């Protein structure tokens, strides 16, 4: 590595950072103060440069730049560049602008990068390529991963500037070598180098280049390096990690390096090696062939290995630049972010774990305070005590702190760090066996405290994507803008304004806008009790703006966005139930064109789906549509009758060919009800289907394979449609009259034809006879299901049935007393008894 890169007074200073590093942020901030550079170049989306001034408005951090686009093929992707108080990039932007420097982002725009990149957070650690190097290093430093490694050598040590530069450049130089000729990295570095060169031409003053440490040296080499140095970064990544690449400062446990003074404690050998490297470097610069030496530096060995692996240098020239597709929709805007999303423990590649912890460290260090852990420990304990209701005594607190301090000492940490704290709590408070697949609630509480709960808010002056403006103006126009308290909105869908509002809110819901919730709709009523009324709850949620800004990826107007989102959802699943649901959603949102398209899609899908319940649920959605089409404005689909017929036929075919033995009674009941409902709807327009229905039911009834419940249901439907001979019902009951099936059959029958039992005396009488013929054990076996079947009747109906039985069996009221009232006392006693039984059942966990 060329030592020139370590020079903090050079014309171009390459300042290496880890995104979201308090130490880097503080050092960079003071370096900017000292150097007063003419230009500050930062790794960030260069297509945001025009709007850069907006970044320094009075936002509340954390916020992120959100860049999104849709290419010609309809592929959408978006990426975040999150900023918090302790992000070095944030310091660079704000301090740079304050000092009047020219501040510029120099990375590729997301639209160009996205087909090369696998990441969605451009400020996450990019160590994929260098995993082997990092794991070797972790072993040497006795840590478990990159975050701990970085903490150990940078954050905890809190080195001075020169030491920081040396440590980070050494570390990142090797990381970069081991990332090899990764297409994404090379393309980005090409872009960044271009900006640096342009700035070099343009500005006479000093320039600071703030990039992820991994790019720093590669950029330096491109601008100032020899050909060989440049080529170092376009080779294949090496297979092996030679021990010699572990730089001198990694003998760290013994050296406790930290200050420039201490860093001079290098062994003679190391000093010689470095001197020689420097000498060779200056030789190279003057084009003097280097003298051969027996003592090779780490870098040279490394480079040799690289050559071996790469085979020939020509072989490497195939590299980068996959074709870049043209963007159809493209945008870049600020969006509120939160520490919860930033926390890599919960988010997707979101960067740094426990941002709350680092925030505390940053704040304390800026105010020259130490022992940040104390504040967080107090917070964790009070979180455990108040929110989780745990009893944590002062003695426990002392034990946690002692353990944390001892762990820090053992790990060579100068102060108690986040893992020491977490381990301290595990060690001193957890008294259970830990199941490593399920996080312990205590640990969740700690992580929550260390994560922090900061939520960003954009300045009112920040420009927002058109989608947000549209949504906001509509919300204000209708006076339904979310407030901090919950508002309930009741919409009578027959009213035109209410209907428009409903469609608008449905669109917001499909875009996952937090705080907008549909509480009840006519859908819940399930065919009875028809009321075209929707209730919505609207309340301001911290994620409200972020969700809408991020939904811009789907389109610039609410209609476009909702439509694109719905299409995406439909394409993800290819079954009738979800497609029918999508059609229903499209109608609820009033998306006419899409509804037509989805209907066609659904018709195509019907023949492919052979899951009875799924088709049944699709039938249900369609039925809903057909029943409420005036309210739901499905007129564009003309009529859903054809759809309904298609589903009806498909259901019947599946029922006929497969039966329904593998489904539970509840599902069968729903399905049969939908079928009956549909057959009523279709009676006039489609006689053939209605007849087919009767045929299928008859076949089901006569098949020995049909289960008792379904057969009961089939009998019931046939009876209500007058398709059964007089004594056929009694025959069926007789067929199922053994104790294990009688209840099931009655369940099915009563569920679909309550009246049958009320009207057919012979049926009731036979039932009575069967039940009386049971022995005690048989009766007990049959009791639960039979009782369940009769629960479909109201108490009055049951009373009527009882009287009827008395009459049929020619008994009088005096034989069994049905009439006389209970006195209040016995009624109360019964209630008390019932309560006690209920409690006992609950105590033994017999009922949910």
């Amino acid at each position, binding site marked *: 590595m060329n030592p020139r890169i370590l020079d903090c007074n050079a014309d171009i200073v390459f300042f290496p950072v880890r995104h979201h590093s308090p130490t880097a942020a503080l050092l960079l901030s003071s370096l900017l103060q000292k150097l007063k550079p003419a230009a500050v170049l930062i790794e960030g989306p260069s297509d945001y440069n025009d709007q850069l001034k907006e970044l320094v408005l009075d936002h509340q951090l954390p916020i992120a730049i959100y860049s999104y686009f849709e290419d010609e093929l309809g592929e959408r992707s978006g990426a975040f560049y999150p900023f918090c108080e302790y992000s070095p990039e944030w310091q660079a932007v704000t301090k740079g602008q304050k000092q009047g420097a020219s501040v510029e982002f120099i990375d590729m725009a997301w639209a160009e990068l996205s087909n090369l990149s696998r990441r969605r957070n451009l400020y996450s650690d990019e160590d994929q390529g260098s995993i082997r190097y990092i794991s070797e290093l972790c072993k040497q430093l*006795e*840590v*478990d991963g990159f975050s701990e490694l970085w903490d150990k050598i940078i954050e905890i040590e809190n080195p001075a500037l020169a030491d920081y530069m040396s440590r980070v450049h050494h570390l990142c130089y090797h990381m970069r070598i081991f990332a090899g000729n990764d297409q994404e990295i090379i393309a980005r570095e090409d872009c960044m180098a271009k900006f640096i060169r342009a700035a070099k031409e343009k500005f006479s003053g000093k320039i600071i280049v703030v990039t992820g440490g991994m790019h720093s040296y590669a950029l330096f080499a491109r601008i100032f390096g020899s050909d060989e140095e440049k080529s170092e970064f376009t080779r294949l990544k090496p297979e092996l990690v030679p021990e010699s690449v572990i730089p001198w400062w990694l003998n760290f446990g013994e050296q406790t390096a930290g200050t420039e003074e201490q860093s001079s404690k290098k062994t003679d050998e190391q000093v010689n090696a470095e001197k020689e490297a420097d000498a060779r470097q200056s030789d190279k610069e003057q084009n003097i062939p280097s003298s051969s030496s027996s003592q090779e530096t780490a870098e040279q060995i490394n480079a040799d290995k690289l050559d071996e692996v790469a085979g020939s240098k020509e072989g490497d020239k195939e590299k980068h630049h996959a074709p870049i597709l043209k963007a159809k929709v493209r945008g870049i805007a600020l969006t509120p972010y939160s520490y919860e999303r930033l926390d890599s423990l919960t988010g997707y590649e979101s960067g740094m774990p426990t941002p709350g912890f680092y925030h505390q460290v940053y704040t304390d260090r800026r105010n020259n305070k130490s022992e940040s852990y104390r504040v967080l420990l107090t917070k964790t304990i009070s979180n455990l005590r108040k929110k989780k209701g745990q009893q944590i005594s002062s*003695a426990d607190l002392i*034990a946690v702190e*002692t*353990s944390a301090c*001892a*762990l820090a000492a*053992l*790990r060579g940490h100068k102060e108690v760090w986040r*893992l020491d704290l977490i*381990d301290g709590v*595990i*060690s*001193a408070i*957890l*008294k*259970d*066996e*830990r199941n*490593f697949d399920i996080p312990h609630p205590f640990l969740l509480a700690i992580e929550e405290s260390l994560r922090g709960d900061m939520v960003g808010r954009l300045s009112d002056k920040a420009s927002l994507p058109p989608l947000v403006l549209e949504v906001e103006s509509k919300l204000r126009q209708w006076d339904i803008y979310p407030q901090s308290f919950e508002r309930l909105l009741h919409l009578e869908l027959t009213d035109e304004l209410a209907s428009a509002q409903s469609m608008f809110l449905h669109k917001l819901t499909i875009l996952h806008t937090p705080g907008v919730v549909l509480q009840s709709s006519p859908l819940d009523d399930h065919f009875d009790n028809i009321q075209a009324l929707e209730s919505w709850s609207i309340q301001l949620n911290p994620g409200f703006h972020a969700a809408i800004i991020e939904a811009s990826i789907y389109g610039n107007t609410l209609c476009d966005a909702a439509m694109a989102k719905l299409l995406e959802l439909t394409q993800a699943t290819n079954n009738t139930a979800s497609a029918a649901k999508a059609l229903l959603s499209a109608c609820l949102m009033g998306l006419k064109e899409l509804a037509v398209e989805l209907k066609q899609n659904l018709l195509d899908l019907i023949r492919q789906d052979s899951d009875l319940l799924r088709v049944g649920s699709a039938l249900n959605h369609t039925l809903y549509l057909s029943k409420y089409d005036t309210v739901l404005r499905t007129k564009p689909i003309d009529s859903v009758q054809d759809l309904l017929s298609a589903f009806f036929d498909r259901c019947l075919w599946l029922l006929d060919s497969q039966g329904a033995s593998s489904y539970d009674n509840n599902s069968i009941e729903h399905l049969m009800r939908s079928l009956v409902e549909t057959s009523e709807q279709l009676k006039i327009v489609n006689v053939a289907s209605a007849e087919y229905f009767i045929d299928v039911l008859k076949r089901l009834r006569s098949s020995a394979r049909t289960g008792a419940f379904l057969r009961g249901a089939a009998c019931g439907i046939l009876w209500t449609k007058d398709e059964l001979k007089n004594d056929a019902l009694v025959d069926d009951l007789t067929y199922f009259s053994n104790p294990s099936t009688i209840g099931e059959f009655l369940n099915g029958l009563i569920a679909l034809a309550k009246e049958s039992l009320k009207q057919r005396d012979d049926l009731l009488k036979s039932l009575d006879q069967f039940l009386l013929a049971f022995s005690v054990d048989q009766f007990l076996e049959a009791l639960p299901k039979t009782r369940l079947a009769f629960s479909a009747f109201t108490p009055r109906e049951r009373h009527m049935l009882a009287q009827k039985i008395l009459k049929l069996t020619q008994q009088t009221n005096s034989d069994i007393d049905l009439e006389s009232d209970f006195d209040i006392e016995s009624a109360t006693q019964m209630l008390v008894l019932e309560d006690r039984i209920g409690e006992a059942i609950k105590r033994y966990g017999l009922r949910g």
Partner: protein
Amino acid sequence: MSTKKNTEIQRPPAEMLYADELKILAQEDAKEPRPEGWQLTPRSVIRFITGDKKSGLQSKFVGNRSFLERCVVALATSRGLMLIGEPGTAKSYLSELLAAAISGDSTLTIQGSGGTTEDNIRYSWNYAMLLAEGPSPRSLVPAPLYRGMQQGRIVRFEEITRCPLEIQDTLLSVLSDRVLAIPELPDDERMLFAKQGFNIIATANTRDRGVNEMSAALKRRFNFETVQAIRDINEEMELVQRETEKLFKRASIPVQISPDVVQVLVTAFHELRNAKTVEGQALEGMSTVMSTAEAISTGYAAGLHSYYYSTGTPTGDHLVHSLLGTALKDNPDDIKKLRHYFNHAVRGRKGKAWQEFYEAHKHLP
């Protein structure tokens, strides 16, 4: 005992087996500060356990580093250490290693059982002498706890939850006040104050009687650490290979168990233990533990079998024979599960060792 040769002892304790390593470490960190009464520094204790190729230290225990750090810190901050976990996760071995590294002596061990009495834990009397001379330090027979406190050493309490509650609670005052009262002795000798370096490592098994069988008061005085089964199958293979070789060497049997066979053995144990094949398909979980320790003993038994009754090269056939004793204990369903495992997971796997293993499933009862 120390004069006996290692080889004469069936199972030498860790401090004897690794005496050289302990010596190297003691020399290396002779000047470093350490907790009072400790033979090594906390860092060296961890190095002793995790091993360090450069210094010629063997790796003895596979586990997450921060877990080990927490264990050592618990002992350094004078809290008792309670190791809990499934059987066969090397809890006892870890406690032995810790005791050997910290005190240079892992033999102060109390074995918990239903029949453990206070006498086994604290002290008892030489009754002849007691009758002749009355109570005196001479007539007192020290048990491990007494000796640990007196000499400032780590005391190991194995399977603590197997002891009745009131016996476990003997430890209460010892752990909090670090003092043991011997009311029979004259005033000036009545209190035994623990010397620096004394502490307790207890182990408990979560399979049969869990840590719930323990008073809250005693729980408070221990730091609990759950010992995990080895997650990384490659690490487990390395360990099984190494340990079986060690056992063969100790038994002076010239048998080599080939890496292919070890792979079959460890994969089978790993899959049956986690009820999931390495390809990610679900399996029926066995009622037996299928621990790494059992994998080692299965490998060892297969080796012995092949040496004494066969060609001397352990194959899948020998593995199945030895596996039966380990996997099939009292639950009759396990045999079905094992058969299912052979038919669904093992069958069709490529490689000679796997095929031999599958062929041998005919030995299943």
